[in-house]
């Protein structure tokens, strides 16, 4: 039954959503588009001002590349240096269809795997372009001096990652994100020195300035002085990352937030698939209410570790006293062919299921064992140390348990958000002049992202897609310098000021973190790994109440005119409180299961996610209607010409 907006089976294109998809053979679409895009005369480029919010892989790469092209770029980040964007934390690696291994990889296969891995909820044209561009990314990064792992012969090494059947993941130890980001950061610093990019660190974007229906600037707050001011430009780009921190606990950094995209949404940008979140199975479990974030451990651990819980509920013997006969290696039992290597969503859901049966281990019972005893017995502790030494050390540092002796305990945690602002093939949102790149857009990953594909997408957008498509927009619009004293800017500034003032004037008896924690609990319980109608409705009742409580009883100490971290957090949490509702609305409307979105009502007899292509083969893009509880749904129907939708199976 349609809950919002147009009928579920209506496949007419939505007038709001012009995806500007190219046509023709898929291999040629990007080339054709590149040729069709208008060019900006090189001598004119510096007349165009470009604002880029975010200095992660997406924003950093874009700022550097546009600076190199000669545009007049301003780049913003809330951290103290562009190098600290959360991309830095990515461990595993980056995919690229280089086929160096001669193991059957190709652009088409990467495309195919990504569409299938995304559970057929992504655009074919975008994904194909991503796979094509992936090859250039590796060239670019190597030339920048990114020290990827090498084979003895001196050529680039790859590994197979996240269950892929080809070895296409390039990596730099467990710090691939760091090395890629440093590459982009260095390229960015080079442009800063050259004067083409001006960097504003510790500066947070709090709103988009709209002039004549077009994004013409942003309002920012200087986090050190509290100054609220406007920056104007010909085009605004958001590369502000994911919003996993809606859940309070996630593997995202403390500062990761939705503010930029949420403010843009409220100014008219459609928000696509907000409910698609990815839960990563191998994180270190929560130890207590003080927990501020969750730490991810590389998925590669599942190559040698065996996942199990006690067979009996409430069995709290120490692991070494539980005999083999009393253990349930549930992944191996249920998925004999993939075993411990089933995809992230399947592994996560099964861990939750056994914990719900009160078979979870560790404090609080939210954990499962990841046991290396067999691997150590078979390969020796030294081999295990050489493979996972740093991960084992990290685990021991956090938990004070030695994983060489006692099994690790792991539990799933929110990790990535596939949803984000809707963008067309050219990466422009529904607001003209507002482009969105990286994790912040609704991206090429459909309902589930494959391991090592987010880094690829962020860099593809920033280095190789945006620099072409933005030129087309600018060439059409023509340079149009604007100063920040236009009334639209003043008005938006005033609104931002008011909001800040309001936050500081409440002085209630709850802390920002306290409210955020509660929101996180609600979201995790009802809009987490498994969702159902009743739970989502409960969340939809609670979230607006919580929002009200926040605005009436939160205590934000201090003043605006200095570094005020409580104030920063308060603004972010205020936005999470709104976005959370949209996520639940989206999750409620999508009664099918797909990828990271698992609706308990829609499963196969074996308990696997059951897609409903008939009714849900579309991107759900939400428009802010003025009423947070009643957004308008727009649908972009998805066509599959090259990869035929099938039911995933890992039995």
């Amino acid at each position, binding site marked *: 039954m349609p809950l919002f907006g147009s009928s579920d089976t209506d496949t007419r294109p939505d007038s709001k959503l012009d995806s500007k998809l190219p046509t023709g053979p898929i291999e040629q679409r990007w080339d054709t588009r590149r040729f069709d895009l208008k060019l900006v005369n090189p001598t004119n480029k510096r007349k165009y001002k470009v604002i880029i919010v975010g200095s992660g892989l997406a924003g950093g790469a874009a700022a550097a590349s546009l600076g190199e092209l000669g545009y007049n770029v301003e780049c913003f980040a809330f951290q103290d240096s562009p190098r600290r964007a959360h991309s830095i934390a990515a461990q595993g690696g980056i995919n690229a269809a*280089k086929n160096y291994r001669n193991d059957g990889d190709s652009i088409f296969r990467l495309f195919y795997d990504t569409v299938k891995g995304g559970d057929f909820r992504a655009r074919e044209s975008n994904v194909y372009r991503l796979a094509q561009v992936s090859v250039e990314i590796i060239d670019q990064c*190597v030339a*920048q001096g990114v020290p990827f792992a090498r084979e003895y012969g001196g050529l680039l090494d790859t590994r197979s990652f996240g269950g892929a059947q080809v070895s296409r993941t390039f990596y730099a130890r467990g710090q691939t994100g760091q090395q890629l980001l440093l590459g982009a950061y260095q390229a960015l610093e080079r442009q800063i020195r050259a004067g083409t990019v001006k960097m504003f660190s510790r500066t947070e974007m709090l709103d988009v300035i709209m002039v004549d229906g077009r994004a013409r600037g942003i309002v920012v707050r200087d986090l050190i002085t509290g100054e609220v001011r406007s920056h104007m430009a010909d085009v605004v780009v958001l590369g502000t990352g994911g919003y996993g921190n809606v859940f309070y606990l996630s593997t995202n950094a403390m500062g990761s937030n939705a503010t930029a995209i949420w403010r843009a949404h409220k100014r008219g940008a459609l928000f696509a698939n907000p409910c698609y979140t990815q839960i990563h199975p191998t994180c270190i479990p929560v130890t207590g209410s003080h927990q501020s*974030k969750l730490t991810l451990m590389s998925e590669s651990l599942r190559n040698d570790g065996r996942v199990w819980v006690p067979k009996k509920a409430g069995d709290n013997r120490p692991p070494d006293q539980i005999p083999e006969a009393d253990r349930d290696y549930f992944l191996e039992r249920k998925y004999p062919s993939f075993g411990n290597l089933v995809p992230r969503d399947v592994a996560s859901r099964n861990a939750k299921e056994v914990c719900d049966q009160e078979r979870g281990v560790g404090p609080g019972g939210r954990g499962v064992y990841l046991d290396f005893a067999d691997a150590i017995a078979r390969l020796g502790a030294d081999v295990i140390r050489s493979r996972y030494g740093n991960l084992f050390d*990290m685990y021991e540092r956090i938990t004070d348990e030695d994983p060489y002796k006692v099994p690790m305990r792991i539990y799933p945690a929110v990790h990535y958000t596939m949803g984000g602002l809707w963008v067309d093939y050219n990466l422009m949102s529904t607001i003209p002049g507002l482009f969105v790149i990286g994790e912040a857009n609704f991206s090429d990953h459909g309902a589930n992202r494959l391991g090592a594909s987010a880094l690829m997408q962020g860099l593809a957008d920033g280095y190789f897609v945006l620099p072409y498509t933005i030129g087309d927009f600018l060439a059409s619009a023509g340079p149009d310098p604007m100063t920040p004293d236009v009334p639209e800017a003043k008005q938006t500034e005033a609104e931002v000021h008011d909001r800040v003032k309001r936050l500081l004037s409440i002085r209630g008896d709850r802390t920002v973190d306290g409210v955020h924690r509660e929101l996180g609990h609600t979201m995790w319980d009802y809009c987490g790994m498994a969702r159902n109608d009743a739970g989502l409705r409960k969340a939809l009742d609670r979230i607006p109440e919580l929002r009200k409580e926040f605005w009436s009883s939160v205590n934000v100490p201090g003043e605006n005119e*200095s570094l005020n971290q409580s104030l920063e957090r308060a603004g972010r949490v205020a936005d999470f409180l709104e976005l959370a509702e949209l996520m639940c609305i989206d999750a409620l409307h999508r009664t099918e299961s797909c990828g990271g979105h698992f609706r308990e009502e829609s499963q196969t007899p074996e308990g696997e996610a059951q897609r409903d292509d008939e009714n849900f083969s579309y991107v759900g893009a939400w428009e802010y209607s003025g009423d947070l509880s009643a957004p308008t749904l727009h649908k972009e129907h998805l066509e599959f010409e090259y990869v035929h939708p099938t039911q995933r199976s890992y039995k």
Partner: protein
Amino acid sequence: MNLTLKVWRQKSANDKGAMVAYEARDISPDMSFLEMLDVVNEELTLKGEDPIAFDSDCREGICGMCGCVINGQAHGPDHGATVCQLHMRKFKDGDTITIEPWRARAFPVVRDLVVNRSALDQIVQAGGFVSVSTGSAPEANSAPVGQAVAETALDAAACIGCGACVAACPNASAMLFMSAKVMHLGVLPQGQPERYDRVSEMVETHDRLGFGSCTNIGECSAVCPAEIPMDVISFLNRDLIRSRAGRGMKRA
């Protein structure tokens, strides 16, 4: 456990600042150090006081955002780790813990434990990059790099840019930070064309920014969360000598 904290409080860059004592009660040994500060801050907030400002982001030891001097050591007593990875089980019930910001002229205090480290970005701007514009790169495998060389480069490139080396150095020198970048790019074939100009400009910038001069004490490397070894500094020195010799020859 219960602890006494002596924390540097300073409202703004121009404020004088002082050490202030706080009690931290009912701290679990499983908390990270920053989570302990979160707890103290929640209490301060509810009491209507300003919470202690400190930087952190990833809280897993990679972004380099966090950092303070704990009991006289940069990033505290758990060496080879950042403050965000330090856990309270490293302390005992009843301990008094002093917490101070990084101290260096080039890192002015912004507030409490938060300092301005943009000087490190400026060192990178001076030459810590390979000048290769997007799209101009040759095929990735066209320049093989020996495995050992790649590993050496990565050992140096592992620097997280937290500034602990500067904070710990008795001379407030940023040599370890700068040398790590010089070595990372200096051992790779991609870094060769700009190798000697890079080192020269970076060192000049380092001095201009007001960092001190290294006396090879090794405190930097001892507190470095990424365990960058001292010989990166040796590498920089050698390259600087060669760069100067090269310039002399060019002039002559």
